[in-house]
């Protein structure tokens, strides 16, 4: 059985299931009608070069991404227009869309190309990094619904988002930072080569006239850097002053400004040395650090837009038999809402009639669909899978679960830098102290010696010597080594500071499914009767995406080599119970115990695992016991972490029984089960109140709030995008052992930081008094600074000697 790639999406399938077609004398294979349609559409439009650009990248089959066009009408509704469409003065409309299904730059190319070719579209640009598109069109020539339909026709999907919420602000800040950094880097690079001439002249002698030229050139370059690039620090210092806070900005601004003023004084009076190079260096380094923070915030905003954008803006209400599309904001408690298969729930409620399976994985993390019928409650955020349901809203949209999760996320994103605040207060005290010392030094020298100029140089040298050097290097150097060591072992720390907080943590929260366990059920026991045909069962379970079916399919393909491809007829998916199909007049049934009981078959019911039965013509031929397996070495790794003195707590949305089972297997005694996303967050908050520093490990959207609230959040590399985005650390290899390694590394790094800090404090304690006493001239300062930096760097490199268990 040979496997061939689909001409459009590049996914491989066995030859027999593919659609064959002769195109210009060559045989083309398609996995579905959707892919075939898109292929012909692209070639007809002259966009066949898309496939050259695509290379080996695999796409989603077009039939999976294509949605029914029945909801297209909503894009032309008034409520939708008011919410998402911006009207330009020249009669054009603008919308921001998130394009779903983009895999590579060829996809971006194709979408732009097709949009450009559409009449009435004036501008279409797609950002490949975050899949966001901006489209400007003439509403008289083309409707928005047509634009969306065009995107869908080539196998992608688009939904709108509102950039005014967060993105515009985030983008604007990023751009101003970027330009400010460009100016600062340009200024400092040029001043440095002028300064080299200056320093050379300091040692070997230089004529005053040349020195003046260099001084003026440095002055011209330093001025825009200080006032344009450094504006952020002056603003920060000003706000600090208004609120009576002395912060790092104050120190940076005052140090740089004083050095600048003094340098002008030295330049004009032709006495002493200029310090324009220090001015620009201070500004540039601190500015780059701040820019990195801004970058990470932008990413979080992108993900949040993704969640909000995928939720519907309108729902179908049914009032006395009349159906109407109503904006979600206008839904009041008691309204009857119709839910179709594939729709996401936006408003919580109770089922009035009908029954369907719901995918609640985005809320509970458990991937088994849940069957709901009359009287059951449905939660917003879950996905209706297989049939039409009528339900009554028992909350309005703003108090529904999904909205509250998103709100919580927004809040916690802005609340995140707790450690940063602490660092700022500490540096605030440090800054104040240095400023006071420098002021006292200046007044002291001025009163006792009477020499204004000399007193000013000494005052400034105190600020400059204390400001950036060893103390500034102590943390970044050690964390840099720690972070790069971690990255080599598949542990990504998103920010340097996280190593430090991780080292301090004393409580570890673990999610169950996907974190301690694999998140995929696998076959544990098999009972097979005579007449069992693995190929038939394989064909049956292959028709379903249910995790249990997938688990069985994986088991069969691994265990049996002789599976042949069989085409079944009348395939039916029975709500959350199983599958049914016919093959050569035989009836195949596969599913759980209740399905077989319904069919009048007696089956053994008792097992602590999930059961799957397979019957042909009312005869049970096999049954499988499946359970979620623990991750490799989970128990050992958890033991190791416990030994480090960390309290371990398990948080799960699953039932108590299965939670307890897993907990006892890995040796966790504290278990909280049946938790909703907020409950997890609440528990973490409780621990915070008791003064604990917490680490949370999770993988799903359901963990996102808890992850965002925890001091340190760790996501599994294969988890949901949102989980990875709000988390501080990502474990790429999905192993619990890496968690243990992350602990070891962070603690070692933290020790390195403490040693470095201790040393640099010592350095400051010695250097600052020397500066105060007037013993520090530029030469000594430069020498002692480099020496102290070398010590810090050397000590940090010692972290590399750390040995891990099992591995080299």
């Amino acid at each position, binding site marked *: 059985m040979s496997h061939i790639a689909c001409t459009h999406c590049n996914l491989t399938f066995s030859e027999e299931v593919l659609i064959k077609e002769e195109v210009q004398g060559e045989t083309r294979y398609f996995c579905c009608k959707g892919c075939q349609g898109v292929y012909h559409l692209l070639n007809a439009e002259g966009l066949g070069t898309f496939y050259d650009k695509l290379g080996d990248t695999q796409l989603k089959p077009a039939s999976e991404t294509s949605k029914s066009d029945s909801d297209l009408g909503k894009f032309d509704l008034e409520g939708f227009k008011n919410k998402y469409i911006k009207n330009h003065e020249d009669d054009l409309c603008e919308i921001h869309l998130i394009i779903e299904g983009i895999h590579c730059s060829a996809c971006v190319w194709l979408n732009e190309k097709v949009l*450009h070719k559409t009449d009435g579209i004036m*501008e279409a640009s797609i950002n*490949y990094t975050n899949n966001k598109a901006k489209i400007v069109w*003439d509403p008289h020539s083309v409707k928005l619904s047509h634009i969306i339909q065009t995107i869908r026709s080539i196998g992608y999907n688009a939904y709108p988002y509102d950039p005014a919420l967060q993105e515009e602000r985030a983008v604007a800040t990023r751009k101003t930072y970027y*330009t400010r950094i*460009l100016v600062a880097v*340009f200024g400092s690079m*040029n001043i440095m080569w002028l300064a080299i001439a200056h320093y050379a002249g300091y040692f070997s002698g230089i004529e005053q006239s040349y020195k003046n030229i260099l001084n003026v*050139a440095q002055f011209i370059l330093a001025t825009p850097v200080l006032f344009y690039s450094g504006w952020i620090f002056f603003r920060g210092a000003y706000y600090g002053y208004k609120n009576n806070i002395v912060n790092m900005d104050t120190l940076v601004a005052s140090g740089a400004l004083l050095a600048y003023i003094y340098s002008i004084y030295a330049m004009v009076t032709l006495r002493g040395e200029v310090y324009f190079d220090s001015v620009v260096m201070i500004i540039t380094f601190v500015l780059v650090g701040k820019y990195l923070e801004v970058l990470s915030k932008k990413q979080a905003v992108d993900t949040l837009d993704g969640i909000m954008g995928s939720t519907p803006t309108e729902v179908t209400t049914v009032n006395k038999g009349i159906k109407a599309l109503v904006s979600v904001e206008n839904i009041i408690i008691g309204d009857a809402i119709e839910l179709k298969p594939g729709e996401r729930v936006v408003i919580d409620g109770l089922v009035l009639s009908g029954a369907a399976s719901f995918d609640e994985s985005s809320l509970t993390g458990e991937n088994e669909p849940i069957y709901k019928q009359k009287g059951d409650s449905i939660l917003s955020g879950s996905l209706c899978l297989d049939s039409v349901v009528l339900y009554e809203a028992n909350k309005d949209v703003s108090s529904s679960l999904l909205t509250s999760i998103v709100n919580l996320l927004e809040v916690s994103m802005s609340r995140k830098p707790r450690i940063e605040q602490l660092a700022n207060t500490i540096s605030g005290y440090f800054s104040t102290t240095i400023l006071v010392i420098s002021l006292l030094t200046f007044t002291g020298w001025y009163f006792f010696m009477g020499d204004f100029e000399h007193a000013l140089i000494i005052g400034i040298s105190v600020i400059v010597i204390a400001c950036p050097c060893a103390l500034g290097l102590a943390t970044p150097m050690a964390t840099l080594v720690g972070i790069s060591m971690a990255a080599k072992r598949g542990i990504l720390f998103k920010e340097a500071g996280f190593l430090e907080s991780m080292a301090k943590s004393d409580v570890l929260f673990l999610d169950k499914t996907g974190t301690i366990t694999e998140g995929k059920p696998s076959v544990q026991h098999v009972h097979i009767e005579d007449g069992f045909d693995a190929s038939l069962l394989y064909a049956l379970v292959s028709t379903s995406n249910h995790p249990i079916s997938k688990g069985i399919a994986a088991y069969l393909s691994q265990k049996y080599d002789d599976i042949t491809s069989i085409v079944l007829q009348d395939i039916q998916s029975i709500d959350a119970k199983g599958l049914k199909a016919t093959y050569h007049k035989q009836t195949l049934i596969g599913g759980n115990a209740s399905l077989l009981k319904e069919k009048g078959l007696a089956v053994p019911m008792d097992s602590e695992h999930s059961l799957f039965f397979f019957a042909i013509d009312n005869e049970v031929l096999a049954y499988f016991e499946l359970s979620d397996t623990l991750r490799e070495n989970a128990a050992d790794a958890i033991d190791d972490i416990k030994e480090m003195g960390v309290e371990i707590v398990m948080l799960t949305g699953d039932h108590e029984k299965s939670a307890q089972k897993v907990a006892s297997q890995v040796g966790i005694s504290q278990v909280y089960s049946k938790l909703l996303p907020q409950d997890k967050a609440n528990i973490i908050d409780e621990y915070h109140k008791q003064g604990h520093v917490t680490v949370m490990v999770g993988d799903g959207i359901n963990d996102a709030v808890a992850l965002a609230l925890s001091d340190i959040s760790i996501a599994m590399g294969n988890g949901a995008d949102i989980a990875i985005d709000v988390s501080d650390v990502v474990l790429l290899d999905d192993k619990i052992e890496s968690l243990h390694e992350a602990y070891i590394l962070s603690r070692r790094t933290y020790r390195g930081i403490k040693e470095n800090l201790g040393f640099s404090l010592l350095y400051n304690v010695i250097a600052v008094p020397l500066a105060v006493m007037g013993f520090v001239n530029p030469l000594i300062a430069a020498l002692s600074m480099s020496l102290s930096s070398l010590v810090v760097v050397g000590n940090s490199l010692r972290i590399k000697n750390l040995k891990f268990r099992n591995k080299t």
Partner: protein
Amino acid sequence: MSEEIVILMIGVSTFLGALGLIGLIWAVKTGQFDDHSKFIDATRHDNEEDLRDAAMMAEKKAAHKKRIKELERKKCMPAD
């Protein structure tokens, strides 16, 4: 080396550098670096076709502006 030469060298090189800086800032402000992935891939997909596309979009915009102007003129014209 005379003082004038030093001034000239520093002045000219700083000026040239500043021109580059201004160009870079202009690129940032007009959003040319907003999408770093596309920026890197641009070299792979850059071809005549894209130029034709850009020309087509410019034509479309020009046509739209013309139409708007004509509409306005009609509005301003006194009724016969």
